[in-house]
């Protein structure tokens, strides 16, 4: 009888794999199984690559650029009422929270599936991304107190506008998941 990986290990790896390639990758890892360590090392090298590949495949250039602009506007809206004079590098500092927010949205693109088209999933993705931006702001503020750390970022109307813009954008141009064809379509 062939050795199979522990169910727990398979479930864990399956949780990290994008749905579009979960089936075949888990099958290939199972077929190549020798021991738990080899399985873990194999999975550790495969998962980041397939996630990156799915992100690249599911993310449209224009959608990505518009999303980045939307997130940047949402974050930068918090400093529109502040004078940036005497704060060299202020805009660069403001750009920092944009990075985790955009990264979260990109990673969600990698895990896109048909159900991601649901309004609730889109809203959740964008809310988590904007939340990550806000959290980064708070960490930066705690690390180095400054007006530019945007404590008044939360109630900004422009931020809410940017949040809505990204939701609408992702609803109109959802990440295009390349789901596997139906089983049994062997030719």
């Amino acid at each position, binding site marked *: 009888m062939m050795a*199979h*990986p522990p169910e727990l290990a398979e479930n864990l790896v399956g949780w990290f794999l994008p749905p579009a390639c979960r089936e075949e990758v888990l*099958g290939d890892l199972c077929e190549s199984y020798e021991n738990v360590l080899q399985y873990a090392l194999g999975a550790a090298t495969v998962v980041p690559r397939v996630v990156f590949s799915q992100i690249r495949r599911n993310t449209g250039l224009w959608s990505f650029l518009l999303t980045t602009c939307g997130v940047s506007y949402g974050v930068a809206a918090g400093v529109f009422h502040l004078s940036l004079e005497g704060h060299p590098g202020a805009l660069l500092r403001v750009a920092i929270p944009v990075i985790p927010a955009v990264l979260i949205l990109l990673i969600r693109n990698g895990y896109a599936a048909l159900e991601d088209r649901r309004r609730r999933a889109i809203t959740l993705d964008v809310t988590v991304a904007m939340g990550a931006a806000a959290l980064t702001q708070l960490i930066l503020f705690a690390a180095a107190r400054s007006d530019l750390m945007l404590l008044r970022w939360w109630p900004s109307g422009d931020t809410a506008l940017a949040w809505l813009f990204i939701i609408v954008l992702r609803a109109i141009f959802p990440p295009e998941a390349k789901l596997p*064809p139906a089983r049994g379509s062997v030719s």
Partner: protein
Amino acid sequence: MANTETLGSFEQIVLTALLLLSDNAYGVTIREKAAALSHPKKVSIGAVYVTLDRLEEKGLVSSWLTEPTPERGGRAKRCYRLEPPGRRALEEAAVTARRIWESTATVWGRNWAKEGGAK
């Protein structure tokens, strides 16, 4: 001459593996064949997935899922097939490789390649 895709060296290896495996080309077998072709370089299955994904996006290969099998823990295989544009791109790459081999052989001697080339 029809415009064909320019292939990277690992893409050429993966397409050659698909050509050799014909109906039995899926992740594990493609990696094994690609590793044999790339010897002594090591080939990770992750690199194979990424390359296959890119080749499929370019329309050079196509894929489909088979029925699940017990030896794979009840999981399906994703099988791959070389499509006509992929075959053309591979032919072009092979012609270029042959030209390179012939050119280098005039300088280094034909026995160089037969003896295994640079080790």
